[in-house]
């Protein structure tokens, strides 16, 4: 029982941490609070729907491809010309990108919610450390955990990661020391594309359906987690997202049912309170990079 709950809570925490990093990375590197993030997830989810009859790993690969392409194209068309704009203009632009991508989805294949039949191997339940847990929960935990470790390795140990962190710290200084903006910014979008595709694969498996509006909820989770954790550091953001996920799992099993409907109101009120009292985030010690 307790192991089952832990796997569920930690899995949800890992998923939320993944979603949060996708928001925090772009915010750190180019000051973009990306409201089109949900539509990157939508692109991945759409691939999962399109290739639902293929083997699952192949569908996930296609989801990564779709999300990365959408991320890079949106950077090229919308955010590249606005590179020197202030954060609020970028945020409005990302609203526009979000609406445009949603409209494209609605125009073409997703005027209505489409079901994605669950993969048979995901609905199995297996013995794990003496408890009975579903493969889906284990997969959420495993896949998101691996992605988080991958991001940590990429940011900490590779040249690209160091350049990305330098750009997040001080973009102008980094570029005068030889960090190429035209390399790091698209690279950041590619990473975000991969992250959102993995998030999409997990979300589709959990929800069993795909719709044009499905990106809203994960995007909001990413934004809340990033603000709670402190937007200036990826570690803080990941931790914020993780705690948010674990707290959500906890709330859902503890809150009385008639209050669960108001969960979002509580979450967003907490978000406002954090912004007012500690704009640099609950978990971050460094100063905030917001204008």
């Amino acid at each position, binding site marked *: 029982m307790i192991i089952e709950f832990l796997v569920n809570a930690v899995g949800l925490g890992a998923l939320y941490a993944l979603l949060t990093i996708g928001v925090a990375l772009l915010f750190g590197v180019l000051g973009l609070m990306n409201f089109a993030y949900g539509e990157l997830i939508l692109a991945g989810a759409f691939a999962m729907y399109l290739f639902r009859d293929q083997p699952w790993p192949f569908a996930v690969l296609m989801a990564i491809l779709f999300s990365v392409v959408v991320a890079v194209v949106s950077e090229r068309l919308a955010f590249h010309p606005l590179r020197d*704009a202030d954060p609020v203009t970028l945020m409005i632009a990302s609203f526009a990108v979000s609406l445009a991508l949603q409209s494209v989805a609605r125009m073409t294949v997703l005027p209505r919610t489409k079901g994605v039949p669950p993969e048979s191997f995901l609905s199995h339940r297996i013995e794990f450390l003496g408890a009975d847990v579903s493969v889906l929960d284990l997969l959420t935990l495993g896949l998101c955990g691996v992605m988080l470790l991958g991001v940590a390795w990429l940011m900490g140990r590779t040249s690209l990661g160091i350049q990305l962190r330098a750009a997040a710290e001080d973009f102008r200084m980094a570029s005068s020391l030889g960090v190429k903006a035209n390399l790091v910014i698209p690279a950041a979008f590619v990473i975000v594309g991969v992250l959102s595709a993995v998030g999409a694969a997990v979300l589709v498996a959990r929800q069993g359906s795909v719709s044009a509006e499905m990106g809203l909820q994960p995007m909001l989770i990413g934004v809340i987690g990033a603000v709670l954790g402190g937007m200036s550091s990826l570690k803080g953001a990941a931790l914020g997202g993780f705690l948010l996920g674990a707290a959500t799992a906890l709330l859902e099993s503890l809150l009385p049912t008639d209050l669960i409907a108001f969960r979002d*109101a509580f979450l*967003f009120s907490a978000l406002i309170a954090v*912004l007012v009292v500690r704009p640099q985030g609950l978990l971050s010690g460094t100063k905030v990079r*917001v*204008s």
Partner: protein
Amino acid sequence: MKNQNRLVAAVSTPAILIGLVLVVALIGAYGDVTTARVATLALVSVVFVVGLSVFSGNSGVMSFGHVAFMAAGAYTTAYLTIPVPLKKSLFSDLPGWLSWLADVHTSFPVALLAGAVVAGVVGLVTAPVVARLSGLQSGIATLAMLMVTYNVLNSWTEVTRGSSSMIGIPRGTTAWWAFAVAALAVVVAWGYRCSRGGLQLRASREDFWAAEAAGIAVGRHRAIAWVISAMLCGVAGALYAGYLTSFNVNGFFLAATFSFVVMIVLGGYLSLSGAVVGALAVSALQEVLRRFQDGQFTGGSALPAGVADLIVAGVLLVVLVKAPYGLMGVRELRLPGSRRRAAEPAPEAEREPAHAG
């Protein structure tokens, strides 16, 4: 002579804007049914966007949460004007402490005022948050306010009917009512803009720290502007409810927010004329696109739903890239002759703001 010129300069902008609004009202009053609907809703948008611009235009802080005030006004109108017998059956499960809501009834003009007051109270409660934040933090916080409002309206089913539509509101809004309120909104917004407080707030928009150093209580002025703009947006919501006679909570969420953001950005969010021009232009554009999507220009074959939204999003992106301060920039509509003479008291109008965050 000079004083007279200054007076002409001071009243020429609101006079031109009211004239513009009057033209739309005339179209609404004497046009056919569809035209009347588009024109009246365009006037409601003018009220809303002018209200939004009282805060955003003067403080330079963008808000994504004003639709919550519109919702406050609309729900207030619904509670006050739906006939009592119908209301009793619509809200049969009101909790005890709110049961008086089923019995109150007022006329439409009183409901308009009440909408403004209720939205103003919501604004007053949230003002301390806005007073403390700027730039992106303010954007996220105002969006979070909208999320809280939406969640409560959508989930508190006994009181707000949740996701079911609010129905049976008597049609109180006419083109003339919408015109009167829009004209009043323009006068209020212009009056505030030219007032001492408005000038101080605009100074803080140009340079926050310089304004603070000069002794301007930026937070307090932001809060004042926030409450005034909340009240105007509340009236817009009341007009909206009184015109459509039924509305749904989904009408006060991201789609509406986006559409108003397009209006104020396209017009130019630093200028009152920009707010009016943007609201009217985008309303017209949306109607043209709706007809385009329904196939009225392409020989009757309807295009898939979403084409109109896609084009609006594209227009917004192009505006953000090519003209980040919109059609009007920081200029105001003025009589041609008075521009040069009026230029001297407003050196601010000569340059783009240093930072709009």
